[in-house]
């Protein structure tokens, strides 16, 4: 997979297929990005599991914290990692010991480790780096358009009125005429410099 620019169908396929998501580095602090994403994905119907050894014994929005991936005790479809790039590899190594393996490993905005990604992809796991699943879900459903964000999708169909807890259709037409090639290039330059 080219990790500099993901086709919408790749992201769409992941968000349409996974049901359970273990979030490594989930924070109970309600201004942290991980909290935002955890809450949003839970509201959109994903089965969310917060992982953070510092908060075991507590809950995040009603879901008990788990200490580590090894302590999950049940299969998960996707692991969403809220850690800096330098802390990705140990999480991937731990993820690769799970049985069954997760189908997807997702690294948050700003996080990228190509070596770790290659390791996961070599055993058939799909990898996404430097993206946020909340933003991508909001973009592909066009819900994020409320914020003036370029969803890069079009539809001439009447959408259902969104209600709380509802899964939104992600199957809109993707467009490239208004793509963010410039933004992808900038991210690539940054990752090559670092």
């Amino acid at each position: 997979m080219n990790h500099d620019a993901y086709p919408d169908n790749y992201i769409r396929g992941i968000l349409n297929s996974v049901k359970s998501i273990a979030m490594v580095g989930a924070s109970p602090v309600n201004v942290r990005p991980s909290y935002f994403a955890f809450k949003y994905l839970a509201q959109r119907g994903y089965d969310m599991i917060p992982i953070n050894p510092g908060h075991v014994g507590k809950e995040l929005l009603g879901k008990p914290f788990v200490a580590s991936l090894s302590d999950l005790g049940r299969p998960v479809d996707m692991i969403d990692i809220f850690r800096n790039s330098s802390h990705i590899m140990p999480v991937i190594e731990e993820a690769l010991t799970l049985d069954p393996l997760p189908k997807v490993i997702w690294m948050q905005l700003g996080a990228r480790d190509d070596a770790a990604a290659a390791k996961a992809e070599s055993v058939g796991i799909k990898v996404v780096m430097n993206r946020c699943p909340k933003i991508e879900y909001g973009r592909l459903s066009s819900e994020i358009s409320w914020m003036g964000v370029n969803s890069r999708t079009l539809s001439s169909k009447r959408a259902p009125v969104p209600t709380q807890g509802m899964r939104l259709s992600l199957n809109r037409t993707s467009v490239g005429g208004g793509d963010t090639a410039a933004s992808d290039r900038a991210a690539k330059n940054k990752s090559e410099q670092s």
Partner: protein
Amino acid sequence: MSDRLPGFSTLAVHAGAQPDPTTGARATPIYQTTSFVFNDADHAASLFGLQAFGNIYTRIGNPTNAVLEERVAALEGGTAALAVASGHAAQVVVLQQLLQPGDEFIAARKLYGGSINQFTHAFKSFGWNVVWADPDDIASFERAVTPRTKAIFIESIANPAGSITDIEAISTVARKAGVPLIVDNTLASPYLIRPIDHGADIVVHSLTKFLGGHGNSLGGIIVDAGTFDWSAGGKYPMLSEPRPEYHGIRLQETFGNFAFAIACRVLGLRDLGPALSPFNAFMILTGIETLPLRMQKHCDNAKAVAEFLAGHPAVASVSYAGLPSDKYNQLARKYAPKGAGAVFTFSLKGGYDAGVNLVSKLQLFSHLANVGDTRSLVIHPASTTHSQLDDAAKVKSGAGPDVVRLSVGIEDKEDLIADLEQALGA
């Protein structure tokens, strides 16, 4: 669901809009409301904390305005946009995110006269210090960079003479200095030039001009290219540091490549207040649907009018980058191959008095202070838009006493030429 890439005209009609979920209305409804009901207390808290996507209050966001924002972001190739009350408001909101009192920004000397006034006087009172550079001398931008420089500001096609700016060369200076390049793309519109493709980090527009296109509604917009790394060097605390306005949220970390647009919305528009009326947003959206058609006609007419003027004995010179003899013609071929815009100047052998005389005799061209209308417009900058500049500054900005500015409309070009002919000849 295919990843086929639609063209510019398709985006101009469709981007950001879809049938209304509640009524099925196909045109974008005018959501003429101040505020929006919350589902419950938790939903309200989520919206106020920026945790959920949705509407709170029209000073922060509005569904009609959101369609306009996404459409312009798509046409410019940006990640997000924010619509505001005017082009001037867009400039205030952009610089508020970038500059602290005592900071500097470099601006091209050739700008809309209103921008020159805003930068020189209003922004000075905020402690934002403008440093002028010459867009025809790229090295003057490099020389103007200091440790306090926070941004570079240029126009893609510059008012009043329609000169073309070498965006790529100036973006190289900005990148080297580690500051964002802001491009005012008002006179080009994204149909002619997409500055982000040439290295712009932020694009601003007066929507009042060609995008709205009908001279009936004020508006402005800010487009985030998603290209600038706001966290580098700690120079942009509005983007990179915990914001007390939102309990310590860091915008770049949370919103990634559209953090600048969010900062403009939640720190700029929310607190400064220059919200766009949803009715104006609707009028501008309707205008944008025909942007490609209008812009091409504007350019074709402008070229014909410029050619006519260049051959007229009363005319001393014509400054239109679409003419092969023009000093900006090479840049026009590179940056605006479909046309060099429809705003340009010419000078009359009879000087100031001849300019005033011409304006008074024209029958189709309207004498007013605007550009980018369907109607053809004329103004004598030295006695109007640029009248507050001293004589030297007038000449430097291309608005000397003998200069007349046209904004060529979409009427029949034969009628425009006949009108100029009678006014020049009498």
